[in-house]
């Protein structure tokens, strides 16, 4: 970036900012307004169910990542460790518990309301279960509902699995939600929300697909985590989310038509040198610095697996207003970390080919076994199948002790050097042919 400038605030960004501000205001007034609050997770979330019952969702993972971005997570993690949590375990859990120990102050500086319901839909991560067992003890007496989402161990979603999930929803989860909300589920309203969800999902997929263009108008990882926010959290199923994605698609398409590169925190990238596919979550404590290493080198992430933790819409899944509970069940089972390893490798291979990537990079997260265990084998498989250079770096989500800037920068620079050399060779070969 030769000419750094203030981040451009596009209209979609403003819309998202307002949506979030309104949510946090609603949350801070929740108790006064008699609104019930549900703590739940992002992957396999049941947002439409929560919103259809006029309750407000809080996502502990989002709190944790925001604490990471606000440089608060290091202290929170240490406080949880003082309580007996080992250094070795998932730092999202510790950050959330530490935040709670410190008064549960949310990203806007206001206290988050305590939960009326803990809704554990544990999709793709066993640690979620442990996390909520701990929360249940920290909020004694709070209603807790759990939706066990079977893993796609054989690479398919079976009828038995769907039946199991639908039964849990019908006979356990929804009745508990109704009890807390003090009203019956309005299925017409739910269907309408699922219809909205599907509309937003269509638009989101179109946004993601713009990255097939050269140059890509978006960064599907670093900017992707912002873009995916409304769909993955409290807004899926709302009209606002549809409006947000309409606006986002409009902006992104305009950029694509003008052959522009992605917008970064320091303005617009001038040249796309490398197209990458990335596996694994980003680091949040040094998010800007981390991103900068990439855009300074002209590297754009054209597809990422992390932006699919909230659903694999680009592979065809849509919420279905005519089959509400079945489609919610399919949704939960279809999230990225609920795929088995061969499916994950197939998906990455597909992205590399579809998005014509020059390289594949893994950001391996210390905290997250769900993502990380098996990544080295995945890397080898991808290398063999696609024949492109693969890179591997390590960091953590929210524990600043595990982000070594110098180390990561060195590794990435060597990796980009390798990609650069390969590019030159490929161009020569092409010219000779």
């Amino acid at each position, binding site marked *: 970036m030769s000419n750094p400038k203030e981040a451009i605030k596009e209209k979609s960004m403003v819309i998202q900012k307002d949506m979030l501000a309104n949510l946090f205001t609603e949350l801070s007034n929740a108790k006064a307004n008699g609104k019930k609050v549900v703590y739940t997770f992002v992957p396999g979330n049941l947002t439409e169910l929560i919103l259809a019952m006029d309750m407000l969702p809080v996502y502990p993972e989002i709190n944790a990542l925001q604490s990471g971005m606000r440089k608060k997570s290091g202290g929170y993690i240490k406080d949880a460790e003082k309580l007996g949590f*080992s250094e*070795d*375990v998932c730092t999202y859990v510790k950050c959330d518990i530490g935040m709670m120990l410190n008064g549960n102050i949310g990203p806007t500086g206001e206290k988050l309301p305590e939960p009326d319901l803990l809704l554990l839909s544990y999709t793709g991560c066993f640690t979620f279960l*442990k996390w909520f067992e701990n929360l249940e003890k920290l909020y004694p007496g709070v209603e807790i509902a759990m939706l066990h989402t079977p893993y796609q*161990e*054989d690479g398919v979603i079976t009828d038995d699995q769907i039946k*199991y999930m639908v039964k*849990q929803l019908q006979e356990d989860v929804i009745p508990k939600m109704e009890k807390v909300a003090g009203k019956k589920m309005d299925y017409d309203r739910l269907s309408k929300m699922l219809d909205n969800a599907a509309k937003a999902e269509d638009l989101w997929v179109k946004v993601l697909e713009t990255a097939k263009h050269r140059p890509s108008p978006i960064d599907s990882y670093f900017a992707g985590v912002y873009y995916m926010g409304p769909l993955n959290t409290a807004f899926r199923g709302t009209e606002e989310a549809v409006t947000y994605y309409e606006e986002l698609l409009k902006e992104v398409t305009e950029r694509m038509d003008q052959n522009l590169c992605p917008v970064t925190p320091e303005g617009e990238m001038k040249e796309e040198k490398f197209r990458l596919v990335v596996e694994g979550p980003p680091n949040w404590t040094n998010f800007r610095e981390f991103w900068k290493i990439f855009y300074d080198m002209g590297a754009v992430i054209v597809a990422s697996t992390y932006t699919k933790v909230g659903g694999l819409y680009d592979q065809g899944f849509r919420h279905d207003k005519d089959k509400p509970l079945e489609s919610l069940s399919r949704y939960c089972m279809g999230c990225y970390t609920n795929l088995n390893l*061969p499916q994950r490798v197939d998906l990455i291979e597909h992205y590399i080919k579809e998005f014509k990537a020059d390289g594949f990079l893994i950001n391996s997260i210390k905290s997250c076994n769900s993502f990380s265990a098996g990544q080295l*084998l995945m890397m080898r498989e991808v290398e063999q199948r696609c024949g492109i250079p693969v890179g591997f770096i390590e960091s953590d989500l929210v524990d600043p002790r595990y982000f070594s800037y110098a180390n990561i920068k060195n590794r990435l620079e060597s990796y980009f050097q390798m990609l650069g050399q390969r590019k030159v060779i490929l161009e020569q070969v092409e010219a000779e042919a």
Partner: protein
Amino acid sequence: MMKQVSDRLTSLLEECKSLAFDLNFTYAKQWKAKSKYRLLVGYLPIYVPREIIHAANGLAVGLMGVGDRKQIIKGDAYYQSYICHLPRGIIEMALDSNLDNFDGFLFPSICDCVRNLSGMFKLAKRGKFTRYFDYPQNFEKHIGGTFYHELLQTVIDDMFKLNDMKITTQHLNDSIKLYNINRSLIEQIYNIRQDFPWRLSAVDVYHIIRAGMVINVEKHNEMLHEIVDLISEDFGEPMDNIRVVISGSFCEQPPIGMIKSIEMAGCYIVDDDFMLGSRWIHGDIDATSHDPMNALVDAFLTQSGPSSAIYDVGNPKGARLVQQVRDRNADGVIFCAASFCDPALLDRPTLQKSCDEAGIAHINFQFHENTGQFKVIKEQAGTFSDSIKLWV
């Protein structure tokens, strides 16, 4: 008289020890070689209902890691430094010849490492079938029970495809009976040790139970019968040791040297969760019903012991650990979890709190299965033992 008992016991214990740590699974492979209809099914910690494998003419072989008995070379290249050790050893065995001739592998749901390892086996094309065994976390019979029943049927179908053996009601009831006997004999050993911990060391018990994971249940039952008889005789001298329960080592196993160090430091281990799968179901499973699959499902839903693998809301593990300490008349708990073991380490603060509230003393170690240095652990366990003796 006393001498004779000790000799027989010594030789049985030696046999258990060599079986327990035969990472080539020689016994199991020889067993399988006797008939082309026999199957070997490897399973990871913690629990699988071995009864269905037995009834399908199979031998369920517990894969508990390699401890410090096998050098990890390839396995380390498959795992980042911050992932526990157990899966490294398992993948090392799978890539070497240790698991040759195994027909299938089951990966019970305990954590995402084991879950993803099931996918690594698929990618590496190991075994004719590989199943992640996703236990229901819903314990309503018509919801979680139905799902579990279907899960068992999937594994039965996998095995049927390989050996054409149809499991009859009689077969399954017979298998259930044998495993009822097995669990009951193991329980008797723990009960005898509770009163007379000096008759067998914790390491001996460890070898006895682990041997049962690599041989057929009929043979293990014979050995257990004999051992129970032998240790029912009075021998040995009590020492001035405290009595502890070990919690948190249910998957990656602590090195034998570490178990030894704890006992040598003055702590009789009167209960543990080392080989939890063999003791998972508490009490007998109905072995006389017309629907033994249903009996297995019921047992899982209602007779499972406390475990980090099971959602504990409504039946908290902390209270169950406290009860276990009381039942075993133990003086304290040693929390002993593998490094980087999320399930054990995330449960630990709650379990410690329950112990604190119940006035139960506890200490805490972390280990790797291939740790070689036990000096610090011995010192800490010694101090723990001394501090308890001072107050009891």
